[in-house]
C-alpha cells in the first residue's frame, strides 16, 4: 500500500514536470559570438525564467557562436551543442547541462509507460562534419588514462576504417618529435612521425590503445575511440634524466615491421654516450660504429658505406648539402652536438626523394627552438667550447635556436718548438633555426649554417675553407590526406690558399661550389593500404674549379682561371608504400634523373675509341651561356619489401639503382680540404651503381632485443680513378687525367642491439669486400693490368661494441670497442739507387695490408642533481680515448732520409688520451 502511494507521488511529480516543461515553452532571442558557457547561460537566464545547472570545468573548452530569434530553448540548446558531446535536460525551469552523459529527467522508458520530452542533443547519426576545420580545436592529448574521442561522436560505431592524424610534440618545448612511433596493438599496425612530427594512421573505427615512443621521450599510451576521421595532437613528456638508453632505432617494432633496410637512426643522447677523442660528442664518429660503415683511418674527413667512396655520401643538414663535414683535418665533425637532434643513415633503402649520390644518405636533423621558454646550454672542453640559446619569439608559434662553437687550439700550437710556434689553426660554426607556425596547416622553417676553418703554417701559406647554407621550408597540409613540403636553399663550399712569403711567387688560389636547390615533396595517404610520395627537385650547380691569381705588385704569378662549370640536376619521383596484406609490405619507387651540363663552356672533342690524350683532341666546341651541352637521362629504381613470418620475425629484400653527377677529384688516401669537385660533362660520364640486399630481422624479449642479418651485393660503374702523375688542381683538361673504374662490393652485416635496461647498446660484425678494376681500353696504362684490386677502404672484418651501463640515475659508464682488418696498402718490393738516394719500386696497387686496428674507449658520465627546478643543470663527462694505448697504424710509408730509405708506421692517438668536458644547461 505504501509502495502504491509512493508510486503515485512519483507519477504526479513527473506529470507535473512534463506539463511544466510545456508551460515554459517561451521563445528566446540572442546573439552569441565565441561565447563561453557562462556568457551563454547568463544571456539565456536573463531572458527567461530558466535556471541552469552545470559543472563549469567540463564546459571550459566550449565556445558558442549562435544567433537566434524567437526560438524555444530546446532549439537553441540543440544548435549550441550540435556535434559536441554536451547534453541538456530540462525539468520545468531547471536546465541541467552535462558532458558525455545525459541526465534522464524521467524514469527509464517503460517503467511507467510514460514518455517525456527529454531530447538527446546528439541523436544525429550524421558522419558529415560541416564545421570548418579551422574552427575546430584539435584536442591536445596529454594524459594516459583519459579516453579521447576522435571524430564526430555517434551512438553506434559504424563499421569500417577512419583516419587519425596529428602532431606529436614535446610538452615542454613544443618541438616536433621526429620519428616517434605509434603502435596499435589491436591491429598490429604502426607508423612513425615525419620530420615535422606529423603522423597519419588509418584504423578500424572503435576503441584503440595507441602506444607511443619517441626518442628521448617517456613511453606513453593514449586511449581513443575513433568515430570518424579526426585529429589528435599528442604531447610527450621528456625523460628528465638525460642518462638515456642507447637506441639506434626510433621504435621497437620498426626493426621487424618497417619495409626499410639498411637504415640506422640515432638520437643525440645516444651519440653523446659514445666516448670521443676530445670529449665532445661527434656525430660522424658514431656513424663509424654502425655496421657497413668504415673509414680509411682515424681523423679522416670521409667515411665509406658498403664499399662506396667517401664522396658517394650525401650529407644533409636540415636539407642543406654539406660538402666538407669536418673541422681541423677531420679531427672534429662540423656539426654542433648541442643543436643536432638525430641522424639517419640510409645505406640500402634510399628513399626515392633522394638522388645524386651512390652510397648513402646521411640526414642530420637539428632541433627546433623551444616554443615555450628561453633555455640554453654551454659546454667547455680542452680544445673547443660551444653555446646555444633557444626560445620563443612568439610563444607557441615562433621559436629560434642559435648555436655556436669555436676552438682555442692555438695554445697547444704555441707550446710547440720554434719551427711550428707561429702556426695557428682555428674553426668555428654557427647554426640558426627559426620555425614559425602560421596556423594548423602551415609551418615555415628557416635554417642557416656557417662553418669556417683557417690554418696557417708559420706565417707562410694560409689555408681556409667554409660551408655556408640557407634553407627555407614551407610545410602545408592540404587536408588529412595530403601534405607538401616546399623548400628552397643555397649551399656554398669554398676554400682558399694564399701565400705571400715570397713576393715573386705570392699567390691566391680559390675554389668554390655554389648550388641552388629547390624541392617540392608531397605525401598522399591514398588509403590504409597505400601511401604515395611524389615530388620534384632540382639543383643548379655553379662550380668555379680553380682560380690562381697573383697577389701584390711584385708577383709574377700568371693568373689562371679554369672556366666555371654549370649544370642542372633534376629529379622527378613517385613512390608507393603498399601494404599488400598484414604480412607483406612493399615500398616501390621510381626516380627519373635528368642532368644537363650547361654552357658557357668550351668542350674538347676526342677521337672516338682513342685514349683521351692531347694528341687525340679533334677540335673543340664553344657553347653559349645556358646552352645545354650534354644531357644524361637516367631512371632509378628503388624497391624494398618486407614479409612478416610471425610477430617478431621478418624477411626483407631490396634493390636500388643510383646515379651520381658530381665527383670529388682526389688521389689521396682520405679527403683533403684542397680536393676539388668536378661535374659530369661530355667526356666524364656520371657514376652509376646498383645494389641488391636481403635481410632477416628478429625481435625478442618484448622487443628489447633486436637482431638482424643483412647481405648485399653492389656494383659501381664509372667511378673515377686517376692516371699516374695526374694533375687534379687547375687542370683545364681533367678528362685526360682520369680513368673510369668499375667496382663490386659485397658483404654480410650482423647486428645485435639491446634497447632497454640498465645495460644497453649494440654489437655488430661485418664481413665485407670491395674491389675495383680499370678495364677502360682508352685509359692508356692500366692499374694492376686491368685486374680487380681491393679498394683503399676494403676492410674484410669489422667488429664494434658500443655499450652503456647505468649504475644509477646520476652515474653511467660507456665502453666502445672497435676492431677491423687493416686497410690495404701498396708496399715496395724492390729498392734501387737513383738521384743521389735510395728509391723504392712499388708492388701492384693495394696488395698488402697495414696491421689490424683495435681501439677501446671508456667514459664516465656524471649528472648533476635531478631537481627539475634549479637555475642550471650541469653534467661532466670524463673518459679515456684509446684505453689500451694501442699504436694503430694510420699509414705506413717508405721515405728517404739522407739517401737511405726507411719504412715508418704513423699512428694517430697512439697513447691513451684522457678528456674531460663540462656541460651546463640553463
Amino acid at each position: 500500500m505504501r509502495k502504491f502511494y509512493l508510486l503515485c507521488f512519483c507519477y504526479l511529480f513527473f506529470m507535473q514536470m512534463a506539463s511544466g516543461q510545456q508551460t515554459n515553452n517561451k521563445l528566446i532571442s540572442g546573439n552569441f559570438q565565441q561565447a563561453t558557457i557562462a556568457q551563454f547561460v547568463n544571456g539565456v537566464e536573463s531572458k527567461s525564467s530558466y535556471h541552469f545547472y552545470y559543472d563549469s570545468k567540463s564546459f571550459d573548452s566550449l565556445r558558442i557562436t549562435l544567433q537566434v530569434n524567437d526560438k524555444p530553448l530546446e532549439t537553441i540548446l540543440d544548435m549550441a551543442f550540435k556535434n559536441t558531446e554536451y547534453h541538456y535536460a530540462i525539468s520545468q525551469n531547471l536546465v541541467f547541462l552535462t558532458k558525455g552523459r545525459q541526465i534522464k529527467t524521467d524514469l527509464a522508458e517503460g517503467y511507467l509507460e510514460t514518455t517525456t520530452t527529454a531530447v538527446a542533443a546528439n541523436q544525429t547519426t550524421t558522419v558529415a562534419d560541416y564545421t570548418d576545420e579551422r574552427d575546430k580545436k584539435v584536442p591536445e592529448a596529454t594524459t594516459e588514462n583519459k579516453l579521447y574521442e576522435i571524430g564526430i561522436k555517434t551512438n553506434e560505431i559504424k563499421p569500417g576504417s577512419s583516419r587519425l592524424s596529428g602532431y606529436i610534440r614535446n610538452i615542454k618545448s613544443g618541438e616536433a618529435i621526429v620519428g616517434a612511433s605509434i603502435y596499435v596493438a589491436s591491429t598490429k599496425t604502426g607508423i612513425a612521425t615525419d620530420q615535422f612530427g606529423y603522423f597519419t594512421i588509418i584504423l578500424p573505427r572503435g576503441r584503440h590503445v595507441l602506444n607511443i615512443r619517441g626518442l628521448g621521450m617517456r613511453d606513453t599510451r593514449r586511449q581513443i575511440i575513433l568515430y570518424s576521421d579526426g585529429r589528435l595532437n599528442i604531447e610527450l613528456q621528456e625523460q628528465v634524466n638525460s642518462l638515456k638508453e642507447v637506441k639506434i632505432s626510433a621504435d621497437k617494432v620498426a626493426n621487424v615491421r618497417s619495409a626499410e633496410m639498411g637504415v640506422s637512426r640515432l638520437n643525440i643522447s645516444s651519440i653523446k654516450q659514445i666516448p670521443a677523442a676530445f670529449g665532445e660528442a661527434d656525430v660522424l664518429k658514431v656513424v663509424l660504429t654502425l655496421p657497413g660503415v668504415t673509414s680509411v683511418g682515424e681523423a679522416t674527413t670521409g667515411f665509406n658505406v658498403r664499399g662506396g667512396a667517401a664522396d658517394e655520401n650525401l650529407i644533409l643538414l636540415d636539407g642543406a648539402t654539406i660538402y666538407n663535414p669536418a673541422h681541423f683535418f677531420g679531427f672534429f665533425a662540423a656539426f654542433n652536438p648541442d643543436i643536432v637532434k638525430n641522424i639517419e643513415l640510409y645505406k640500402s633503402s634510399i628513399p626515392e626523394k633522394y638522388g645524386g649520390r651512390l652510397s648513402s644518405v646521411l640526414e642530420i636533423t637539428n632541433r627546433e627552438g623551444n616554443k615555450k621558454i628561453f633555455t640554453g646550454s654551454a659546454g667547455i672542453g680542452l680544445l673547443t667550447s660551444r653555446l646555444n640559446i633557444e626560445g620563443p619569439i612568439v610563444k607557441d608559434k615562433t621559436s629560434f635556436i642559435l648555436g655556436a662553437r669555436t676552438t682555442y687550439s692555438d695554445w697547444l700550437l704555441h707550446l710547440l718548438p720554434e719551427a711550428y710556434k707561429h702556426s695557428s689553426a682555428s674553426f668555428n660554426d654557427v647554426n640558426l633555426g627559426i620555425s614559425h607556425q602560421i596556423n594548423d596547416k602551415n609551418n615555415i622553417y628557416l635554417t642557416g649554417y656557417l662553418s669556417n676553418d683557417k690554418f696557417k703554417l708559420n706565417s707562410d701559406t694560409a689555408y681556409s675553407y667554409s660551408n655556408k647554407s640557407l634553407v627555407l621550408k614551407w610545410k602545408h597540409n592540404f587536408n588529412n590526406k595530403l601534405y607538401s613540403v616546399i623548400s628552397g636553399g643555397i649551399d656554398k663550399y669554398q676554400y682558399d690558399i694564399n701565400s705571400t712569403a715570397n713576393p715573386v711567387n705570392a699567390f691566391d688560389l680559390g675554389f668554390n661550389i655554389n648550388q641552388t636547390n629547390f624541392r617540392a615533396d608531397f605525401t598522399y595517404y591514398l588509403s590504409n593500404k597505400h601511401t604515395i610520395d611524389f615530388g620534384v627537385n632540382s639543383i643548379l650547380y655553379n662550380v668555379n674549379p680553380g682560380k690562381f691569381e697573383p697577389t701584390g705588385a711584385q708577383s709574377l704569378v700568371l693568373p689562371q682561371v679554369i672556366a666555371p662549370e654549370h649544370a642542372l640536376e633534376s629529379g622527378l619521383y613517385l613512390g608507393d608504400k603498399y601494404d599488400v596484406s598484414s604480412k607483406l609490405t612493399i615500398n616501390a619507387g621510381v626516380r627519373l634523373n635528368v642532368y644537363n651540363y650547361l654552357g658557357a663552356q668550351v668542350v674538347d672533342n676526342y677521337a672516338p675509341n682513342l685514349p683521351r690524350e692531347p694528341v687525340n683532341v679533334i677540335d673543340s666546341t664553344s657553347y653559349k651561356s645556358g646552352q645545354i651541352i650534354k644531357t644524361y637521362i637516367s631512371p632509378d629504381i628503388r624497391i624494398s619489401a618486407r614479409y612478416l613470418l610471425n610477430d617478431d620475425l621478418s624477411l626483407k629484400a631490396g634493390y636500388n639503382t643510383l646515379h651520381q653527377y658530381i665527383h670529388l677529384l682526389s688521389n689521396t688516401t682520405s679527403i683533403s680540404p684542397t680536393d676539388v669537385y668536378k661535374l659530369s660533362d661530355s667526356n666524364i660520364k656520371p657514376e652509376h651503381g646498383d645494389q641488391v640486399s636481403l635481410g632477416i630481422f628478429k625481435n625478442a624479449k618484448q622487443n628489447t632485443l633486436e637482431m638482424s642479418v643483412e647481405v648485399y651485393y653492389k656494383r659501381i660503374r664509372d667511378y673515377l680513378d686517376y692516371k699516374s702523375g695526374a694533375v687534379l688542381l687547375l687542370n683545364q683538361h681533367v678528362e685526360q687525367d682520369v680513368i673510369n673504374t668499375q667496382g663490386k662490393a659485397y658483404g654480410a652485416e650482423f647486428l645485435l642491439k639491446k634497447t632497454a635496461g640498465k645495460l644497453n647498446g649494440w654489437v655488430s660484425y661485418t664481413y665485407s669486400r670491395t674491389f675495383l678494376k680499370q678495364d677502360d681500353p682508352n685509359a692508356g696504362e692500366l692499374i694492376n693490368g686491368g685486374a680487380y684490386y681491393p679498394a683503399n677502404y676494403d676492410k674484410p672484418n669489422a667488429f664494434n661494441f658500443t655499450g652503456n651501463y647505468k649504475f644509477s640515475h646520476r652515474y653511467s659508464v660507456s665502453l666502445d670497442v672497435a676492431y677491423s682488418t687493416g686497410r690495404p696498402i701498396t708496399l715496395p718490393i724492390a729498392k734501387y739507387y737513383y738521384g743521389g738516394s735510395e728509391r723504392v719500386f712499388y708492388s701492384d696497387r693495394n696488395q698488402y695490408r697495414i696491421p689490424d686496428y683495435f681501439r677501446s674507449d671508456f667514459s664516465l658520465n656524471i649528472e648533476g642533481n635531478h631537481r627539475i627546478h634549479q637555475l642550471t643543470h650541469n653534467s661532466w663527462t670524463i673518459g679515456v680515448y684509446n684505453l689500451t694505448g694501442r699504436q694503430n697504424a694510420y699509414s705506413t710509408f717508405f721515405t728517404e732520409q739522407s739517401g737511405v730509405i726507411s719504412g715508418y708506421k704513423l699512428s694517430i692517438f697512439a697513447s691513451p688520451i684522457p678528456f674531460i668536458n663540462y656541460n651546463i644547461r640553463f
Partner: protein
Amino acid sequence: MTKNYSCLFSLLTLIIGCKKPYNPVVTATNYNYLVIEGLINTGQDSTIIKLSRTVTVDVQTTLNPELSARVSVENNQGNVYLLKEMGKGLYAIPALNLDTLHKYRLRVKTSDGKEYLSDFVKAKDSPPIDSIQHQFTGTAENIFSYTHDPTNNTRYYRWEFQETYLYYSPIQTQFVYKNGSIIPETPDDEINVCYISDNSSDIILNSTAKLKQDVIDKNPITQVSVTLDKLRVRYSISVKQYALTPDAYNYYQSLKKNTETLGSIFDALPSGATTNIHCITNPTEPVLGYVTAGTISQRRIFIDRAEIPVSNVGVDYSYCGTAYESYKVQEYPLPYNIIQGDVTPTDSVIKAAGKTRKDSVFTVYYADPGCTNCTLKGSNKKPLFWK
C-alpha cells in the same frame, strides 16, 4: 701545398701521434729490374750513364751495378755514339757537342742479351744560374738559387748540388802511427785538415709554368744547420741546374712523391713513375729511370765562418780529450789500442827521464780517432775549385 699540409699534419701527430720504424717482410723475390740514370750531355761535358739493378728491400747495400753492357747514344738521323765502360756500372763518352735540333735516345744491351731503348728526347739546354744566395734564419743557412730564361722556354727545372767544407780535427796532432811506429806526419798523412763533400739526396724541382715570366726566384736548394760542422770554417756549395721537358718533370715529381713525401694523411697514393725507357726484348718487364738530354749549368759559392752571425757553430767536441798510457818497452812496443787503431796517438812517444834503458818507461798520449783523424770523414787533398 701538399708539403705544407704534411708539415702541419706531422705537427699534429707530434702532439697526439707517433712515428715508428716499420719493416714488414714483403717479398723475398729479387726482381732485379734494370735502372738507367743519366743525361745525354749535348754540350761540353762528358755524358755519363749509370746502370744498376734493383735489390730486395731488406738488404743493407743498395749498390748493384750492371757491368759489361753496351751503351750507345743515337740521334734521329741514325748517328750512333758508343759509350765506354768505366767500371762500377758507369759508362761514359767525352763531350759530344751535339746540336739541339735533333732528338736523341739511349740504347742499352745488357750482358744477358736483353735490349733496352729510350724514347727520343728533345735536348733542352739549361739557362745559366743567375746567382746562388744564402740567408741565415737563426739556426741554419738557407741556400737559394735564382735563374731566368728570357725566351720563356725552359719552364721546368731540376737541381742537384754538391757541398764541400773545410774541416779541422778538434785535436791537432803532428804524428801518425804508421808501419808499427809513431812518426811525424808527412803531407800525404795529413789528418788535421780535410775537405769533406756530400751530394744532394733529395730531388729538387721547380716550375715556372704558372708564372708570366720564366723566372725562378729564391728557389730553396738546401738548409745547412749550424749544429753541423759544415759552416764551422768555410763552406762551399756547387749547384747544378737541369732543364726538363714536362714529361721528365712529371717523372721526377712522381719519384719524389713516392719516396720523399709519403705517409701523411693528404699525400697521394704511390703511383708508378712513367718512364721513357722500355725493354724491347720483353715489353712487360719494368725499367726504372728516365733519360733526358741537354746541357747543365753550374755555379758555386763560398760561405765563411765570419758570415755566420752566431757564435756556436758546429758539433760540440768538448768530449774530445787526450789520455796517456805509460809502459815499459820490453813488455810491448806500443800500447795495444794504438796498434789496433782504436785510438790515435797525438804526440810522439816520450821517454821518462833518469832511467836505464832496461827499465825505461815510455808515455804516449792518444785520443779518439774521430777527434784527430779527419780523413775518416773526408779527403786531405784540397779540391781544385777550393780557393
